[in-house]
């Protein structure tokens, strides 16, 4: 296990290198000159040239890459070209709000989603199954900004219970956390149900059923373990997605998250911030996937870690 972990971690290094090249190339391939955007329409060509130099955008592209990569390895992320704030600070300010919102959304969505899924799977085909599944699916079928705006209208304007947005007390988490988790809960519910139903029908489970109680218990253990696989996959994926920030929900709820930061940075072509944020996301994903692969093995020892 330990060997596996070390090897997996080592194997992520080339991924990060590939990501860095990809990100750098992507950012620089986007049409739009950051110096021009920074300077605004009133600026003179001389101003813009000066800004470009200041941004380190002079010289051949490969040397720019090497300079950036070299600095990044040493955690010198530079300054935002837009606000001139250190990139680490820009990201730092928004990382925690993003993480907490993700955690809140994931927790409620996983608990509710998996419970609905299990209930549905066990009561498959009965009215309980249909009702809870239609409910769960309804959650995922709402366009999130519409849902968000309706919630704000109800809970902030009409009832005055919750703030319209921003980051602060637990009250600020309720609506964005709920909206963000809604889609996840539905996905979790359906996958849990699916996995449950499918594996309940597996040969060994049916055999166990026919043979009587003790083996049935064994089979249940198997069932749960196997059912867990897609649920784990999905939890990992969803967690990664949500950590990437949700620009729509962050915009609606004025949430200081990474999604909005990234989209704003792209429209300003704020290269240092875009690059650093995407590198951070890659790192998160790599770590999450590693965790997922390890959990596979925990859930089902038949899947060996090679």
């Amino acid at each position, binding site marked *: 296990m330990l060997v596996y972990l070390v090897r997996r971690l080592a194997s992520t290094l080339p991924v990060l290198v590939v990501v860095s090249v990809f990100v750098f190339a992507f950012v620089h391939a986007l*049409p*739009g*000159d950051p110096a*021009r*955007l920074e*300077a*605004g*329409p*009133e*600026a*003179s*060509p*001389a*101003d*813009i040239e*000066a*800004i470009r*130099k*200041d941004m380190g955008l002079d010289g051949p592209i490969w040397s720019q890459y090497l300079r950036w990569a070299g600095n990044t390895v040493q955690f010198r992320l530079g300054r935002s070209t*837009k*606000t*001139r*704030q250190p990139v680490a600070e820009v990201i730092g*300010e*928004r990382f925690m*709000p993003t993480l*907490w919102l993700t*955690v*809140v959304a994931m*927790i*409620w969505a996983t*608990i*509710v989603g998996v419970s609905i899924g299990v209930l549905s799977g066990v009561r498959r085909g009965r009215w309980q199954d249909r009702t809870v599944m239609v409910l769960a699916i309804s959650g995922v079928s709402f366009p999130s900004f519409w849902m968000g*705006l309706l919630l*704000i*209208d109800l809970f*902030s*304007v009409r009832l*005055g219970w919750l*703030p*319209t*947005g*921003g*980051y*602060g*007390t*637990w009250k*600020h*988490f*309720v609506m964005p*956390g*709920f909206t963000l988790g809604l889609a996840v809960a539905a996905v979790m519910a359906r996958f849990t149900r699916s996995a449950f139903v499918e594996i309940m029908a597996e040969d060994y489970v049916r055999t166990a059923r026919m043979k009587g109680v003790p083996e049935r218990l064994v089979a249940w253990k198997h069932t749960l373990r196997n059912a867990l696989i897609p649920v784990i996959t999905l939890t990992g994926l969803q967690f990664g997605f949500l950590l990437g920030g949700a620009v729509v929900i962050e*915009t*609606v*709820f*004025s949430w*200081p998250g990474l999604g909005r930061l990234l989209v*704003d940075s792209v*429209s*300003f072509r704020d290269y240092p911030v875009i690059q650093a944020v995407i590198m951070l996301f890659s790192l998160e994903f790599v770590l999450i996937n590693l965790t997922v692969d390890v959990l596979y093995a925990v859930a089902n020892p038949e899947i060996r870690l090679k």
Partner: protein
Amino acid sequence: MLRRTLLMLGVALPFAAGLAPAARAAGDVVVALDANIIGLDPADLNDNLSMTASRTMLQGLYGFDKDMKMIPVLAESTDASADAMTYVIHLRKGIIFHDGAPFNAEAVKTSFDRARNPDNHLKRASLYAPIDKIEVVDNDTVKITLKYPFGAFINNLAHQAYAISSPKAIAEFGKELGRHPSGTGPYKFVSWGTDTLKVAKNEKYWKPGLPKVDSITIRSMPENGVRLAALQAGEAQYIYPMPPELVRVVEKDPRIDVVSARSIYARYVAMNNMRKPFDNPKVRLAMNYAVDKNAFLKVVYGGYGVPLDSPLPSNLSGYTKQGSYPYDPAKAKALLAEAGLPNGFETVLWGGNSTLSQRAMQFLQQQFAAVGVKVAVEPLESGVAAAKIWNVKTPEEATTMMHFTAWSASTGDADWGLRPLLDGGAFPPTLFNTAYYSNPVVNDAIKAGLTTADPAKRQAAYDIAQAQIWKDTPWIFLISDDNVSAKTKTLSGIYVLPDGQMLMEEAELK
């Protein structure tokens, strides 16, 4: 389901309690705006929102009152030479910066020299370009000598880019000045974090009786409807912009006032005057007749605004009314036929990708279709727009056909309302003449206006320019929309200037 969420959040979020800001202090005003503050170093800003934030703390020698009339602020008076080359400025006495440094001639020189030093790479250095040297005459007098005559120089002094930072802060923070602003303004810097700026009352403010509130918090709320919801819910006391289409929601709300005021925004469609078919004046004229400006105002801006009747908006100094191109599709069709295009033509309309901009372009598309002109609407993402417009070395390379855009002259003066947009020397990448319009009469007039400080001569020059441009129709002259904001009835003293910046010095809660 919601109740369960609440319960769960209560369990999952004990940590959140620590993050809670204390309940709003009495006398704290929350102003919700539509974007994020980018910086607080006035010499390094080019967006209205950041300049608004900066204005709460930093002041210039001159400034604007709420109607954007230029007024002396830290200056008492100025003696300009007849050739518009030297300006002797007498300073107000006895003022100190937030950090305790005294305001004097030396401070002015330090602040200006820093802003215009090319090594500092500040975005507004170009506004300082006319300055040759700054001399300290005595403790309360500075003399500024220009490189060339510039009649509108005092207008530059009123620009927020000329706001004066404390020499102590400049020495102490250097490049970090934008995160540690220190000026002479009514409010002192407290904190600037994600999406939120907080400033507090300057107890030693030089204007007696001001400021009247303890603090101001500026919050960024990008979504229009949510900004309004925050006002309705009492989380914000002032919101700008107030989406005009939603005015009906709060019109009857006894707690809320909607405030609108003329702006100096000119919204127009630049037609590429060097490209067929827009090189034909008849086609350009036809396009002007093809658009119903009043309907445009109603559909896009909720009726808040006025049609343009000159290339300059009516609120800008130097404006002279020219006339109107009333909605007349039959005439437009006839003009197109005269131009050899009886069946219309096809072209592309560029513009921004905001909801409002897309709504405007969609409306224009419908209007053009009615006279047989098929327009493909292309909403451009900001970076792409910049690339398409600026990555052009010569006018021949330009692919612009029609460009829906807007301008507000940040100096509040006719020169900056015309020269960047319509001077023959202002083609991209130099400036913003995306109409690629050049008429010697206009070019000469703009130059004449620039090289004198005599108001009468300047007005005469701008009259000539406006008349010629109106006749040549390089643009489709659309509208000047109002600045619409909304506030709680208990709040007064916050004003939106015609250029979209705001004044908060006199804010007061009743």
